[in-house]
Structure formats: C-alpha cells, structure tokens
C-alpha cells in the first residue's frame, strides 16, 4: 500500500479500483500494480546510470526507467516510477525485472509484444507495453551516450 501511495494512487481509490481491475485486468497486471517491483530512483548524474524518461501523449502517462550498469556491461540494477494507468505501471515494473542481469544488447532486444503477452494486455492497452519498451531503449541510449562522452573526454 505504501508503494501505491508513492506511485501517486490515493488509497481511498485503491479499493474501488481493485474491484474494477478484478473484472477487466489479468491477474499478472494486478499483481504488478499492487506489488510493483523495483520502484524508486537512482542518481541520474551517476556515470554508470542510464535514465529513460518517456511519455504517452494520448493518455498523458509519464514513465521513468533507470538502469545501473557494471564494468562488464551488465545491468546490475533497475528502478522505475510511472504516473499512469495500471497497465503502464505493470509494464514498467515487469521491464525492470527483465532487464536486471541482462547485457545492454540483450536488454535492447526486449520487445513490447513479449511484455504484452506476459501480462495478457488487451489490444487497447498495447501502447503501455510500447511505452515500457521505449523507456528501456531511452535508458540504454542515455547510458551509452554518457559512456561515449566519457571516452571522448579521456
């Protein structure tokens, strides 16, 4: 529940929303929504952190996904925070679980269709999984950009 509060969900609405969710969302979405994994943030100035901040203009969602990469190019940690609907929260929560332990290239291979399939997202919510894929890509790009900059200044 504390997570939900941090995610910007007023507690009074949670009980009401859970009922709606139960009827229309897959249980995996509800699980990620109620117990989101890896909520939080990292210092975006750290050189080993990549930050992806993306938005969906049609619904006004905004999603931040961050990765921490070790010296071998492996993602050792991931955090997210999303202001948006249950599917967007679940998609980004799942994305952080999946990128952890992957190499940068493997993380870049994660497709929105795989996320959507895992969460059994209905067609109208597919764009939430696209947003999560774009967030991963933006985080990877940000990290690579930082590394290129460091190399060029060395």
């Amino acid at each position, binding site marked *: 529940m504390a997570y939900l*509060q*941090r995610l*910007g969900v*007023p507690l*009074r*609405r949670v009980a009401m929303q859970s009922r709606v969710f139960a009827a229309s969302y897959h249980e995996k979405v509800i699980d990620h929504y109620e117990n989101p994994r890896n909520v939080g943030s990292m210092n975006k100035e750290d050189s080993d952190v990549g930050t992806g*901040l*993306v*938005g*969906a*203009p*049609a*619904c*006004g969602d*905004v999603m*931040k996904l961050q990765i921490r990469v070790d010296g071998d190019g492996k993602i050792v940690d991931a955090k997210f925070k999303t*202001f948006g609907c249950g599917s967007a929260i679940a998609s980004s929560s799942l994305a952080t679980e999946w990128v952890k332990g992957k190499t940068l290239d493997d993380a870049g291979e994660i497709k929105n269709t795989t996320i959507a399939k895992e969460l059994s997202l209905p067609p109208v919510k597919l*764009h939430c999984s*696209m*947003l999560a894929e*774009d967030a991963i890509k*933006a985080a990877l790009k940000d990290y690579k950009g930082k590394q290129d900059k460091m190399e060029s200044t060395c």
Partner: protein
Amino acid sequence: MKMHLRILGCVWKFVFHRTHVYNLSPRRCSHSPFSHLHHLPTSSLSLITPCHAYTTQPPGHSRPNICWKCDRDLDEGSRDDDGSRVKFLCPCDKRVVLPPSNTHTYFQIMDCPVSYRLNVEALKERFRQLQRQLHPDRFSTASPEEQEFSAGQSALVNRAYSTLLKPYSRGLYLLELNGLTIDEKDTLTDASGFLEEMWEVRESLDDAANTGDLAALLLLQTTNNANLKNISDEVAASFDSGDYTAAKECLARMKYFINIEESLKDRLDPPP
C-alpha cells in the same frame, strides 16, 4: 409438408422482419458517418463516434429528406438552406421524431460554428433545448420506431454535447475533422524538457500529498490552472491560424496538465 411450410414461413418472416419492416438497428459502421464529407480524409475519422448510421430510411422510405411517417418534404420552406441544418423533428407535427442524422458533425448538431473557441452557455442552452424536444421520456407512449429514434437522437445529442463541452475533447474532435489524431502509439521523448518539467510537478505533488502540505498543493493547483489556461489559449491560436500540427502538439501537452489537475482534485477533495 405442413411442418416444412411453417418453418419456411417463420424463416421468411424473420428475414422480412429484419430487412424490410424494421431495419432500425444501428449499423456497426464499416465506413465513417462523415464519409460524405469529401474534404475529410478517411484516415482522420477513426475517433469520431459513429452517429447511428441507419442502413436505409424506415419502412418504405428510401428517399432522404422525406418524413418517414407523413411523407412531408423536410426541405420545404427552407430552400435557401444549404441542407446543413440538422432536422430532428418533422415540422408537420412536433411529435414525429426523425431518425438520427449520420451526415452531420457535432458542431452542426449543436448549432455551433466549427471552432475551438466556443460559447459554452449557448452550447448548454442548445443541449437543454434539444433534450426537451427529443428525450425518450417524451415518447414513452409513441410507436416503437419513434421510441428508438428518440433514444438515438437523445444519445447523439449527449455525445455531441459532451465532446464539445470540454476544451480537450473539443480540440481532439476538431483535429480529427482536419485529418489529424494523437496516436496512442506515439511516444514522447524529452527533447524539449517538457516531460522533465511534468515529472518534477508530479513528484512535488506526491511529496506534498504524502506530507499533507496543503499550501504546497494549492500552489501547485494555481500554477497548473494558469498552465491550463495558457495552453488552451495556444490551442485556440493554433486552430485560428490553421496550424493543426501546432494544435496537436499543444493538445498533447494539455493532456498532462489535465492529468495533474485531476490528481490535484483527488488529493484536495478526495471522493467519498
């Protein structure tokens, strides 16, 4: 044999009933109700809610602009009219409700100029006036056809009203009439710093709500209301100058301010 004939009779009755007698069920449109408007690209019409497209006129009335009940020419006495005026009732008798239009935009239905700038009071008055005439309660003792037409008309007026009432949905509708939509598959990246700005507002909103800082919430609300007004002015100016791409970009930003507004309302005035 008798049995077979009876079955055949039933099947015939069913087919006849569906295709010739009633033929009233609103069709799931395979094409837009606005496809007659040739200046509109068809791709632009996905968001426009189909307005009760009836496949044909009611029984025996294949001619448009003829009252389905009394055969009166509906254009009579309005020859100077270009046909854009929406007809809800037959002029012969105020109790005869016509089938809902599938050829008019919401602006025409609500008798408003096609513009983002809108007289809300006039819109409300038009809505009340139409519902006084068309509400299904007025037709509770009328024929099934008329009951269905009035329900269709009333629902169409409700949709037109609610779409035009809110600036954001009005803007989206106007955008669609001009061939543009905000695609839900679009992703905004933060080239302009706008998302970062929105992110910071959402974070401060959360912090203020979690610490119960009412003053901070009210300050956020004041700022957000000003932002909403500014962006609405920008949308209006873009539409005025015919710059629909700019209008689309402004509407995309407007959605973020609307979400913040709703979130603030939830915190400041939580639902019971």
